[in-house]
């Protein structure tokens, strides 16, 4: 039996495999179905075309992000570079929901994996961004002229369900970011749960987050 898989692979011509070029078609179809009515049919070539568009999109954005890295003599393409490229190439309406999404991701990652990852990010951040920003949203917020508001089509957890968790998850810098973001004045209920825990509770929470 001469069926040595390694030898066979070496002999095969260097073709580009489909799984190197495109997203899995099942995932693409699933996302397509989400926005279509239940009765809609999708032709196979339309599915494939969407699949190709997704790859082209990733390449298009990455090229721009990578050029920026090279200009700034950095080796690593970061999430910030990607967001920057999207903004530059006309996808500025993506930035706000993506920034919120990245925030949630970082909260979850921080929760699951401890702080190692976060510290590594901080180092990169301090090299990449001249001002010492505690987290990327501060840097990204320069894109905004108005405070970010969750758009309707992205699922964001309602703050009311999470206050105790937030207190554990958010660093001081995150808290101050959110306070700034939502204009957290004295009367703001969003800021109230963070900043007046031990202060005088001169207004009642509908459900006190701390027992």
């Amino acid at each position: 039996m001469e069926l040595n898989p390694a030898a066979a692979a070496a002999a095969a011509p260097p073709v580009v495999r489909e799984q190197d070029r495109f997203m899995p078609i099942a995932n693409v179809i699933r996302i397509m179905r989400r926005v279509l009515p239940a009765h809609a049919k999708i032709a196979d070539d339309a599915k494939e075309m969407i699949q190709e568009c997704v790859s082209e999109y990733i390449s298009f954005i990455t090229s721009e992000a990578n050029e920026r890295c090279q200009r700034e003599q950095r080796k690593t393409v970061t999430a910030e570079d990607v967001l920057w490229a999207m903004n530059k190439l006309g996808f500025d309406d993506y930035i706000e929901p993506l920034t919120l999404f990245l925030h949630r991701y970082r909260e979850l990652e921080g929760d699951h994996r401890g702080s190692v990852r976060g510290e590594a990010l901080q180092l990169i951040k301090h090299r990449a961004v001249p001002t010492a920003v505690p987290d990327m949203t501060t840097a990204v917020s320069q894109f905004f002229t108005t405070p970010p508001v969750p758009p309707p089509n992205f699922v964001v957890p309602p703050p009311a369900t999470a206050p105790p968790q937030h207190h554990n998850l958010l660093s001081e810098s995150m808290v101050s970011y959110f306070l700034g973001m939502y204009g957290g004045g004295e009367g703001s209920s969003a800021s109230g749960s963070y900043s007046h825990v031990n202060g005088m509770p001169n207004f009642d929470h509908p459900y006190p987050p701390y027992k």
Partner: protein
Amino acid sequence: MLVGGVSGRTGPHSLPLARIKRIMKRSSDDVRMISAEAPVVFSKACEHLIGVLVRRAWAAALRRKRRTLLKEDVAAAVANTDVFDFLVQVVQQQPK
């Protein structure tokens, strides 16, 4: 309570991060390193892109009184949207 992710179905990401990273690497020869978070951003961005593209393509199908989405509908969506100019080549040079 956030576990299960935004899409809920395949964990937090409905597109595989490793695949996204591979496509990023292929985008040019000189992409050296990619932060772990960059594909995370793309996973969500691609969902958004597909949503916008498919909604517009479906509108094109309905205009032509069809209930089947064809590739010409996707091409129409690309042609009608400035920000999708970079996809014009893709939808034109489709083989078959």
